[in-house]
């Protein structure tokens, strides 16, 4: 029976980063309100880099987000290098691709394992899952640990990288270290397969919802674009990152503190599903096998499949990392002392675009002749997805009004979680209460 009168007010959706609300009001069978609103305080990180010198911008922006700190660092470095005309070495370029893979593995493993599996297994969080399915959760924890070790080796830290600098790296890993990492990655196939089979066994619980939209992601004819490429769309021609403002078209809405974005349609989606929809042909062979297990083919317009797309990218990042490491190990010219090219700061504007776990991230800096930042703009993936979440809800709610209220609430929360939004990653202060 259709709910003729319904009031849903989910204040602060759980298992997402930051604060977002879902409101649905139905009266006499008519949907009067259906709204996704971001209530997080606006962030002013761009203002914090203005007046700062080129050699600290990537360190500052890496602190914006604990889970995308590698992505913010790389995007920041690309913007600075673009402004100064720096061309990093082919080896640095390979190692930066490993850094992107490391972060993808960290973030996707946590999102699929900690935040999505509880929905599919009908529990409130990963904590009860650790008691009911300790073997599976331990596998997820183990995969996350390998990804952390990879980040530590390539970037110098698991979070907030130190080795990545304008012009290259402060330090390369040794071949022995890379060989050990390769062995760990190669040893993780069994665990990845277990997780994939577990998600597959539960995939029937992912809502079968489709709404056609535009997908935007970096794209390249040479590779599954993550570190480098043109801005690509499933609707339009591609363009260089310098033209990102033509794609993002940010605007304000009264119900949210975050900016929204649109391009060829009224909204677009970024993230793992957008990348696979745009660049499916360039996925690694094993990643394509996993995509086929889930019947994930481009162009998939079901946003709930973003979590499956993340799983496919876990496979891709593992396989491609092994390929990159094999190339480095076979390179007799690999020199751990030749890590950074020389350059001189100069006045100019530079642009960076990198695919981070939640989608395409843009940094845009203007430097003066002394190498101090005079203007900055950062457009994060989650802001690009807000409008798409809103339009998904507007299309979805009428289709599920005949469901019980708790099921409607869960379906809407799962929709938001599927986007893996990072509304705020800037505060975590402890509240201490004394035990009675």
């Amino acid at each position, binding site marked *: 029976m259709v709910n003729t009168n319904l009031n849903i007010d989910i204040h602060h959706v759980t298992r997402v980063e930051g604060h977002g609300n879902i409101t649905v009001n139905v009266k006499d069978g008519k949907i009067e309100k259906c709204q996704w609103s971001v209530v997080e305080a606006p962030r002013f990180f761009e203002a914090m880099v203005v007046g700062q010198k080129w050699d600290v911008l990537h360190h500052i922006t890496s602190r914006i987000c604990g889970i995308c700190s590698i992505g913010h660092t790389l995007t920041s470095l690309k913007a600075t290098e673009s402004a100064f005309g720096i061309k990093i070495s082919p080896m640095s370029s390979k190692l930066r691709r490993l850094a992107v893979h490391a972060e993808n593995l960290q973030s996707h493993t946590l999102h699929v394992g900690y935040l999505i599996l509880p929905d599919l297994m009908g529990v409130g969080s990963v*904590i009860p899952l650790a008691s009911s399915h300790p073997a599976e959760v331990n596998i997820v924890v183990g995969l996350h640990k390998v990804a952390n070790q990879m980040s530590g080796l390539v970037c110098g830290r698991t979070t907030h990288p130190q080795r990545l600098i304008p012009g290259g790296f402060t330090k390369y890993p040794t071949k022995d270290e890379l060989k050990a990492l390769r062995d760990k990655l190669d040893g993780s196939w069994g665990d990845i397969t277990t997780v994939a089979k577990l998600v597959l066994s539960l995939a029937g619980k992912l809502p079968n919802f489709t709404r056609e939209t535009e997908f935007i992601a970096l794209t390249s004819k040479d590779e599954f674009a993550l570190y480098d490429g043109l801005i690509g769309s499933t609707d339009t021609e591609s363009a260089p990152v310098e033209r990102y403002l033509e794609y993002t078209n940010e605007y304000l809405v009264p119900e949210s503190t975050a900016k929204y974005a649109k391009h060829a349609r009224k909204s677009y989606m970024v993230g793992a599903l957008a990348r696979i929809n745009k660049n499916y042909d360039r996925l690694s062979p094993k990643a394509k096998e996993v995509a086929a297990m889930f019947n994930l083919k481009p162009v998939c317009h079901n946003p709930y499949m973003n979590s499956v797309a993340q799983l496919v990218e876990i496979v891709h990042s593992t396989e491609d990392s092994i390929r990159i490491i094999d190339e480095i190990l076979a390179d007799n010219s690999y020199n751990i002392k030749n890590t950074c090219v020389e350059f001189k700061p100069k006045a100019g504007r530079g642009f960076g675009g990198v695919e981070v776990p939640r989608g395409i991230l843009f940094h845009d800096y203007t430097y003066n002749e002394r190498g101090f930042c005079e203007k900055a703009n950062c457009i994060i993936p989650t802001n690009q997805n807000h409008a798409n979440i809103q339009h998904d809800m507007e299309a979805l709610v009428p289709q599920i009004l005949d469901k019980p209220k708790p099921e409607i609430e869960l379906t809407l929360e799962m929709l938001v979680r599927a986007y893996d939004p990072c509304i705020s990653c800037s505060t975590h202060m402890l509240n201490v209460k004394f035990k009675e």
Partner: protein
Amino acid sequence: MHSTAIIGVGNKLMGDEGVGIHAIEYMRETLSSPQKRESQAPSRDPRFHGDDMQFDLIDAGTGGVTLLHMFEEYDRVILIDCADFGGTPGEVKRFDLEKVSLTNDDSQISLHGTSIAGILELGKRLGKKIPKIDIVAVQPAKLDYSMDLSKECSLSLETIATVAKGLLR
């Protein structure tokens, strides 16, 4: 195998929220010269020593769940963090983890936030090694978009270092 670590957590872009990181940086500058070890993991600062003690100093930022893996490597951890315990701004207080309950604004595991309570509960249920943990908490004066500490928390850095090192004796 490392045995002891002082770990600072927080976000340096949010004023006093980053006091844990500022404290680690303060200790790096003021403690005895580090002795570099070949086996040092790249994510850590070289092991520090002073007053016959040796410990790792770790800037864990807002790495969240990553702490679970860090905890596994130690027998003893001193965690420095900004905390609202109803004190005066800049006040430093040591908490025994077993005698307080910790909550974030959500009782959820978060990717970015350092949900210490959730991480510890997860570790316990999975049978992970949990070290003895003390928290050195610092009452903030201001939490806003700034890379600077408040005057109150800046003046507390020496006390934080003294309290943290004192717990290792």
